[in-house]
């Protein structure tokens, strides 16, 4: 079963994605802040990481930087999932090694799921 770590501090979104991804047969591991997300990623070595940017304890960009520095996690695809839509954030995330950058308000849940499935099928 493919493992996904969801680093997101909004519990409502954690709940929605838990139902969605389990129904699709994925194992979802929640993390409510950047620090615990980073720790879990290094421990569990998931198949995919969904990463919000505005996070307590450690900002999403810092998490992204650390994940891409660590030899154990640098190959894991990362989808940045955020409400920040400024072009400079998009460019920075992609420069730091994010696989893709999704602005939450621009996608339906189904569209996000399609992106997840596409990346996991590679």
């Amino acid at each position, binding site marked *: 079963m493919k493992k996904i770590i969801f680093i997101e501090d909004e519990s409502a*979104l954690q709940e929605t994605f838990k*139902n969605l991804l389990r129904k699709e047969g994925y194992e979802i591991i929640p993390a409510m802040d950047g620090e615990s997300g980073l720790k879990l990623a290094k421990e569990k070595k998931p198949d995919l990481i969904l990463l919000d940017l505005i996070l307590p304890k450690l900002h999403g960009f810092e998490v992204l930087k650390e994940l891409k520095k660590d030899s154990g996690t640098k190959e894991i695809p990362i989808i940045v999932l955020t*409400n920040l839509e400024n*072009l400079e954030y998009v460019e920075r995330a992609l420069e730091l090694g994010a696989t893709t950058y999704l602005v939450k*308000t621009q996608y*339906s849940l189904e569209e996000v799921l399609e992106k997840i499935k596409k990346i996991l099928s590679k």
Partner: protein
Amino acid sequence: MMDLKKIYYQLNLPAQCRKYNVPLWQCPQFLFLIMGIIIIGAAITAYLIGTHYIEDPQLIALIVLTLSGTLFIFAYIINVSFEKLAEASRIRTEFVRIVSHQLRSPVTNLSWAIDSLMAGDLGRIAESQLEYFKILKENSTRMKELIKDLLITSRIEEGALPIKKEKVSLIEVIKSLVSEFQPFARASNVEIGFSFDENLPKILTDPQQIKVAVENLLDNAIRYSQRKGEIKIRLERKGDDIYFEIKDSGVGIPQEDQKYIFQKFFRSKSKEKGGTGLGLFITKSIIEKLGGKIWFESEEDKGTIFYFTLPKK
């Protein structure tokens, strides 16, 4: 180097005035400059007139000082009043931006929770419940659109609309938009036709902002169509400009509404058709920021044609 930058920023009048989002004549820094020129001018004029008619130099000096002092007090009072006005305008714009941004998270959470429920992630929905879920979904989508438009509007008013120019084929941009809008057009019983000059050159512009501008025009054209509607989009070269036209066979804009059509939150007296009331304001701001012009012709019950031009470079 940093200090020089700070000094330059302080002296940069247009930049200082933009942050307040008020007309130039209400900008405190501009008023300070004008009042300063008036005071200096008045002092010099008083001196010249005084030396012509009055012999006593001390009296001349007293007159000049009294006049300058009085004008300075008036200038100070006027400047402080306009500074308060400008600051209120800046706070209002920033408030809209902050609140809109803060609203995005709960609205997204709501929208995705509804998506999840409608997809049956938590069990099958009864037919009787489906209609209400559709209402919830529709309204959460409306909130998302309103927040997006409010954020763009606040950026426009702060003079902070991001523009990133690159060589763009407008034909490809419009083709892609027409394709995206096909489901909405079909559902509204509207046909979209797009014709263009085959030899249209690529232009240096911001494709994302053009997309937003044309999206608003296309959205309006579909929304305000009546019965079986037809929308015709045309793209061609006219001299040094690229010329765009979108013609609909919709309800048209009443004569008395036409002069307000580009104002924020203005909705024509035509049937209420959804939308945020900000689309045309945003489109006009974008086209003008990209160096173009926008105008329209409209007749009630016949339809509307919106035109805009963009410079090739």
